[in-house]
């Protein structure tokens, strides 16, 4: 028997219009964490979806412990001991944790058709205990934080006695403390001999957790290297196919002193408490804080997406009413959601339609007819200036990579003549190369006099990009720093300045539940 648990060779896969994998290869040993990295669209997820039975490969070979195997369905993969934890949480919110973990394999009662709920809960409790997870199996999945949901997903994967565990960006939505907890579990699994495939964009993590790193680019496997001896710079250059140096902070020039947007005394329940701030013209204002600090809520309030209890908005010094996104757009405010796919884009529509969407009235003729030529011209213009990589403006947005989708959203808001842009986690799930393009784009926009609010959980990003930094914690603004004297430590200090630690019942009061964990 070879020491390889899994060997994938010559894997080809095409989607309409895209060659996703081109003779890709990958191998996994028992008891190792093997990181799989590459820019978005490099083929990592596709390759792993083939291994976990979600996609069928067009050509190639999968060898599992010396035997060539066919993996036609997720079920077949599970039966072979291969489980995948997806980037999006895949739990059924209306079911309990136990019901989620053992879905499809419920212990049955006397009659085969009946469920044995007690056994199900007992079984799950045991499973959680083995992972040292302190959760009640009867809790509904909807009531957990994202981090806890992820732990449940891992528990679910383990309940199959998986030999191979594939994790697609498991840390994307976690805080430092939660990441530590995740890594603890990953190490325990590795020591038990489980082979773990770890897909991530956070290169700094890889050295901590992985044994080997495989880099993919354009559907091909570039190389597999030892995680300890290879530098991050080397990995990045393999990913992008050229050497890019992570530039020192490139803070754009000072903004003017005109105030583009002022928010005064904004309140909404206990998620936004008395928030006031100013945004200058041509400024990038960073919003830092932990998840659940209320930054997204403030952004959505400014954009009119959620009703507020009180608060005043001034645009260019004038008091304005913003009660709906329509009002916000009318006052030149655009919001780029952290969840692009859900809120930012009509995925099934093509690039030009998406770009035209927010400023649609511009393209209407006198009789309400759509001026297709104008739409095409505008879309083509932004595809060029924003360097959106797409075969044509008629490409469906669904088929673009994350970074390019983000650019389409930016194009959409620019078309709508937006002067104030709120970016919520603009680089989440975007690979290194595309990230720095987005940074340049933000800088350019600020230079052109656009005012930008950038919400980000990545401190280096905040420090590198912002003129000023506002820090939030538990719905309050706890600090404001100028870029000159801000440090990661300083921001963290403000981000953890809590007033209410834990509510009476011991559960965190907001949905993210960060309070329990503190900051790593």
């Amino acid at each position, binding site marked *: 028997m070879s020491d390889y648990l899994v060997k994938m060779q010559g894997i080809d896969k095409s989607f309409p219009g895209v060659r996703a994998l081109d003779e890709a290869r990958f191998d996994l040993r028992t008891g190792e964490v093997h990181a799989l990295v590459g820019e978005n669209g490099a083929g990592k997820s596709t390759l792993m979806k083939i291994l976990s039975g979600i996609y069928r490969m067009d050509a190639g070979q999968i060898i599992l412990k010396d035997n060539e195997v066919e993996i036609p369905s*997720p079920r077949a993969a599970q039966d072979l001991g291969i489980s995948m934890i997806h980037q999006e949480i895949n739990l059924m919110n*209306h*079911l309990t944790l136990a*019901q989620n973990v053992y*879905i499809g394999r419920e212990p049955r009662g006397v009659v085969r058709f*009946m469920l044995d709920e007690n056994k199900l809960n007992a079984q799950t409790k045991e499973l959680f205990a083995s992972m040292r997870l302190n959760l009640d199996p009867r809790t509904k999945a909807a009531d957990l934080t994202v981090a806890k949901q992820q732990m449940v997903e891992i528990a679910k994967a383990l309940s199959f006695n998986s030999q191979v565990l594939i994790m697609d960006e498991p840390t994307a939505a976690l805080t430092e403390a939660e990441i530590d907890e995740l890594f603890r579990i990953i190490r325990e699994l590795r020591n038990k001999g489980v082979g773990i495939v770890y897909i991530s964009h956070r290169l700094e993590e890889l050295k901590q957790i992985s044994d080997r790193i495989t880099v993919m680019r354009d559907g091909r496997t570039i190389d597999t290297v030892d995680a300890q001896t290879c530098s991050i710079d080397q990995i990045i250059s393999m990913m992008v196919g050229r050497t890019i140096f992570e530039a020192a902070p490139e803070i754009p020039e000072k903004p003017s002193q005109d105030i583009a947007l002022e928010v005064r005394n904004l309140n909404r329940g206990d998620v936004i408490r008395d928030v006031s701030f100013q945004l200058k013209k041509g400024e990038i204002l960073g919003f830092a804080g932990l998840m659940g600090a209320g930054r997204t809520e403030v952004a959505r309030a400014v954009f009119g997406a*959620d009703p507020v209890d009180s608060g005043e908005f001034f645009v260019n010094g004038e008091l304005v009413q913003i009660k709906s*996104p329509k009002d916000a757009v009318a006052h030149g405010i655009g919001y780029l959601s952290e969840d692009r796919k859900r*809120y930012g884009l009509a995925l099934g529509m093509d690039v030009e339609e998406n770009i035209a969407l927010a400023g649609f009235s511009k393209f209407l003729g006198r009789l309400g007819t759509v001026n297709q030529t104008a739409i095409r011209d505008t879309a083509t213009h932004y595809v060029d200036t924003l360097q959106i990589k797409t075969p044509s403006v008629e490409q469906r947005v669904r088929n673009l990579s994350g970074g390019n989708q983000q650019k389409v959203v930016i194009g959409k808001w620019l078309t709508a003549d937006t002067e104030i842009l709120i970016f919520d986690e603009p680089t989440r799930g975007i690979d290194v190369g595309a990230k720095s393009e987005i940074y340049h784009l933000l800088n350019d926009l600020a230079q052109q006099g656009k005012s930008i609010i950038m919400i980000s959980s990545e401190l280096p990003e905040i420090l590198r990009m912002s003129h000023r930094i506002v820090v939030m914690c538990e719905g309050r603004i706890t600090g404001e720093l100028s870029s000159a004297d801000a440090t990661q430590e300083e921001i963290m200090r403000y981000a953890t300045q809590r007033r209410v630690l834990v509510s009476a019942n011991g559960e965190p009061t907001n*949905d993210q539940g960060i309070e329990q964990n503190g900051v790593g």
Partner: protein
Amino acid sequence: MATQTGETAATSKRSFLRADAAQKLLAFSALIIIFIFFSLASPFFRTPDNVSSILVATAVNGVLALGVTFVIITAGIDLSVGTVMTLSAVMTGVAVTNRGLPIPVGIIVGLLTGTTAGLISGLMIARMKIPPFIATLGMMMIARGLSLVISDVKPIYFNDTPVFREIMMGSVVGALIPGLSVPNAVFILFGAALVAAFILGKTVLGRYAVAIGSNEEATRLSGVNVANWLTAVYALGGAFSGLAGVMIASRLNSAQPALGIGYELEAIAAVVIGGTSLSGGEGTILGTVIGALIISTLTNGLRILSVPQEWQMVITGVIVVLAVYIDIIRRRGK
């Protein structure tokens, strides 16, 4: 854009906890209030005879609504239940009256007819990927057409088999305990509801119906054969329609081939009033029964108060919209 989802995860999660219980309580209080209102308005309303007739009137729609509950929990819809009910009634009539087969065989024919129709809808939806609205709209017309063809557009009476009528209108309880002559229809409804509640709460089929409605893709990725279970859910819905077909044939002592249109909407209304979410994943059998009771109590009460039938429809419509709106407001948090 984010306009429809104007809520944060925080508020939705907190209100979520109470969602099921609150809607049931709300529907139940609404039923009580409606009942008290009509009792005060008319002394006849609260007589045992009238209460019994309300329950009998609930039976057919209630059983249809039970089947629809499962379908809606999967985030689907079934528009064919009314005409499938009619087709089942006609098939029972053909078996019992035209062919002279024993009544139990006729009942089984009715149930199988409904189940088959549901199965076909389910296959269209799960295998051919036709949207539920369209697939069951097609089935609605197919079943209606077949009913007319098979019956030759004439009602089939059960005059040779007087026992058939007793299925619904007789009273087994009355025979056992004189003075308590509750029609069988009532027991059939509650029996069917118990079976439905059992299936939803205690069996694999119920669990997967909720899972599919909650997150179909996640259910598929968990290795559940979603297509098969979804088909089974529609077949189950069809079985309830088949039962309703036998029930209505018994109640009218005939299979009326032109009947059936409109029943599906009333069934959906009962389900929705009962708090089952059209977006799937949540719903209860008790809620549906209460929903069906609300509709028939309202219809009965308004008729007693001599409100014209046209206005009864208007009021029912308003109630449906209100029920869903209250649900939406509650989900929105504050």
